[in-house]
């Protein structure tokens, strides 16, 4: 077996880190490596955490991780921050709140920029989750800033999705993208020492009552003060309850199958894209087609069929 792969399976941080870099850079070696990983995955529990900026997600994750470590579970964390669409650079600062975990050999933290390459982030996160899973992490936490579709897609990878809110943002709940509120399996209201907490909980509760009135499972709302570690035990309790619910209702299996389906579609998209854009002859073909589209000789749909015909033939 390849040295890098056996390193990953051993849980060696340098091998894990290097393979993630290959994935992020969409290196040609990636698919060969990832093929060898898949059969070693499927054991980890995957938790997605999203919420508005400044809601204390990183601090919450740090506390959550501490609790899991007390239970003897190893933890992998993927902290995703936006890449600037202008410079292509990113400032990844989630680690600042997690540095006390830096020396724990059973915690692996990786910061990722969204990068914005074609189909890039989602498929990269699928791969990183597989890598951490194969490196025998019991718990994998994915942290995103809940602002857009990309984040919603990423959190779909998780078995349990937690949306973090804070009191006193006024009509924040209405302004949060509809999709983000709908993906919650658990709501967490952090910074619950704020006097406006009850009002915020009432707002979420009314939203939950509307969306869950015909469902057997009501989405729980947990109060936390991450900085003091308050409510973290309850949060873990709700995560476990949700996991049990998934198992009992056979939703777990269905959810994983959906995840693999989405992953497969992402890979097909990515490979098709690289087939189209990496091959010189096709590139020239596209250029001529573009000219024809511009001069109205043909339409984009016909052009697309021509390109796909060339690949599938």
């Amino acid at each position: 077996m390849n040295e890098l792969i056996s390193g990953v399976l051993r849980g060696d941080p340098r091998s894990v880190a290097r393979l993630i870099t290959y994935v992020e850079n969409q290196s040609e070696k990636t698919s060969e490596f990832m093929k060898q990983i898949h059969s070693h995955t499927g054991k980890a529990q995957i938790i997605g955490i999203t919420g508005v900026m400044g809601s204390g997600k990183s601090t919450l994750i740090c506390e959550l991780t501490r609790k899991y470590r007390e239970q003897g579970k190893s933890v992998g964390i993927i902290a995703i921050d936006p890449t600037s669409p202008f410079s292509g650079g990113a400032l990844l600062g989630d680690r600042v709140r997690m540095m006390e975990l830096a020396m724990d050999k059973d915690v692996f933290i990786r910061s990722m920029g969204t990068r914005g390459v074609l189909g890039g982030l989602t498929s990269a996160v699928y791969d990183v989750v597989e890598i951490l899973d194969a490196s025998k992490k019991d718990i994998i936490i994915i942290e995103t800033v809940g602002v857009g579709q990309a984040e919603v897609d990423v959190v779909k990878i998780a078995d349990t999705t937690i949306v973090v809110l804070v009191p006193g943002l006024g009509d924040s709940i209405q302004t949060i993208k509809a999709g983000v509120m709908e993906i919650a399996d658990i709501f967490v209201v952090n910074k619950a020492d704020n006097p406006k907490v009850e009002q915020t909980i009432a707002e979420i509760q009314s939203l939950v009552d509307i969306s869950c009135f015909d469902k057997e499972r009501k989405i729980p709302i947990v109060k936390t003060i991450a900085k003091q570690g308050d409510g973290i035990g309850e949060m873990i309790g709700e995560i476990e309850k949700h996991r049990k619910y998934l198992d009992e209702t056979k939703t777990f299996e269905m959810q994983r199958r959906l995840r693999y389906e989405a992953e497969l579609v992402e890979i097909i998209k990515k490979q098709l894209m690289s087939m189209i854009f990496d091959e010189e002859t096709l590139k020239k073909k596209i250029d001529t087609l573009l000219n024809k589209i511009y001069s109205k000789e043909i339409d984009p749909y016909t052009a697309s069929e021509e390109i796909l015909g060339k690949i599938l033939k």
Partner: protein
Amino acid sequence: MDKKIRVLVAKPGLDGHDRGAKVVARALRDAGMEVIYTGLHQTADMIVETAIQEDVDVIGLSLLSGAHMTLFIDVAKLLKKNDINDVLVVGGGIIPEQDIPKLKKAGIAGVFGPGTHCDEIVDFIKKNVKR
């Protein structure tokens, strides 16, 4: 292949001044790099462990307390001990002229004092990054 330069900006030791580190972090981000910031009061062990997990190409150390001869060199030594040779290490802060040759000899490839233009740091990293 879409290779991005990843940089760890770290503040070792007992030094609460991170304005400079943050300005540099921003400049590197604006130059298209992915910058991971550790926050204050890091030990050399924490910095190297973070650099490993984040698989960075560059470590940028910032220190204004005067302990650079100990802490910068500790990081460089620890990298060597872990057999990590493909990470570029640079440093900045209040660093006396006469210390610079010693730091360079210890493996701090670039040392940037007050008044350094951010572009100079960006150029240095782009030119000297090892992989």
